[in-house]
């Protein structure tokens, strides 16, 4: 039984990515954000199952987790769950549906969506800079523009005591400014 469990556990472990997949996150390092620069080595294994590698940058001497800058950063969820949540969100499942499918709390999905959204913008901007935009090597030559109509619910108007307090506070503040 124990053997089966360990086998199952080892098969569930995510694949290890090569060191060329990572870059130094230290902003003061000369090799900051340079992939496959040959400056990284594995310092130690950490985490509950020793599945997370701590990397060492030879250029600046920084040690950092291989999860830094990824969607797994600061999360206690297993990687498979994070991937499933991202897949659900990528195919347009609602937050409640995603939470139900992945068996997590809806607030966890909300937090992950926020983190993933902000990171997606950074990821996109970083890669747009790598597009060639010279006259000799044209990158994008034709662009189509269009609009898409969508709706966002109106913010609910505050009712009751809090609304009254807010109104009084705004009135007082306006009176003093």
């Amino acid at each position: 039984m124990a053997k089966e469990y360990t086998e199952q556990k080892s098969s569930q472990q995510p694949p290890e990515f090569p060191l060329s997949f990572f870059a130094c996150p230290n902003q003061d390092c000369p090799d900051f954000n340079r992939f496959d620069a040959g400056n990284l080595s594995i310092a130690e294994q950490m985490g509950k199952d020793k599945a997370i590698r701590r990397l060492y940058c030879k250029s600046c001497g920084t040690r950092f987790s291989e999860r830094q800058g990824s969607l797994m950063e600061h999360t206690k969820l297993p990687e498979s769950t994070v991937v499933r949540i991202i897949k659900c969100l990528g195919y347009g499942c609602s937050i409640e549906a995603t939470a139900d499918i992945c068996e997590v709390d809806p607030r966890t999905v909300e937090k992950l969506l926020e983190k993933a959204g902000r990171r997606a913008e950074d990821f996109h901007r970083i890669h747009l800079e790598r597009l060639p935009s010279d006259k000799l090597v044209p990158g994008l030559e034709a662009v189509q523009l269009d609009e898409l109509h969508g709706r966002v619910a109106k913010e609910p108007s505050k009712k009751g005591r809090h609304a009254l307090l807010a109104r009084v506070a705004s009135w007082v503040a306006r009176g003093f400014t």
Partner: protein
Amino acid sequence: MVSRFIIDLRVGPRTLDTAKELVASVAICCGKTNPILLLMDEHLPYPAAILHVFGLIKHRRRRKKGRGRKCKPTLKPPPWLLAGVVKKLRDARGNLLGVTTGALFGRLKDIRGRIQQLGIGCKINTSHLERLNGTLRGQQTRLARRTRNISRLGCMLIWSLWLWRDLYNWARPHGSLDGCCPAMVLGLAKHVWTVLEYSRYPVHVSDLQRRCWVEQREDALLSALDVYQRKKSLPTL
């Protein structure tokens, strides 16, 4: 070859400011001085937004016989910019009667020739983007028609769209691209990424980089007229 790469998704009202932001994203990506072909529908703010971002200064002559006040300079489209418009003709009830095309900036003949040269079609069209809109509506319930699953918060919609854009560009093989993803066609990726790869990819952005991006966008949003009319600072001792 058509790459189907999504450059930007902007969420906002249908105003000139949103249009300017969108066109500025195109300018950041392609460069303000590179020859480019823009294809769009007849959304009213587009011409003004394109002129604002890509336009050059047009100096005008004085009025009759050199008398009177000097005319203020305006903006003119650059000679390397080609822009075509798809116009939909509708009746009073909104039913579609037909579709016509026209040139907004540049010659119609040049635009058609460029479209055929790039292999986007035979005439001015926005078919690729209309198809993408269909995919987006199908894959994001928040944007589906006649749905009650709309976003309660605007930021949630933006984050979902940004995430979807990245997955579409990097992690979805496309039938019309021979199983490649849009990033592969542009040479940014060597294979179609898995969601695990995307999730584990480390994204590090320095503060300096962020400031550079903000400056880049401000520069892109600054028209040639703004630069021309900017007050020069007096030399100080």
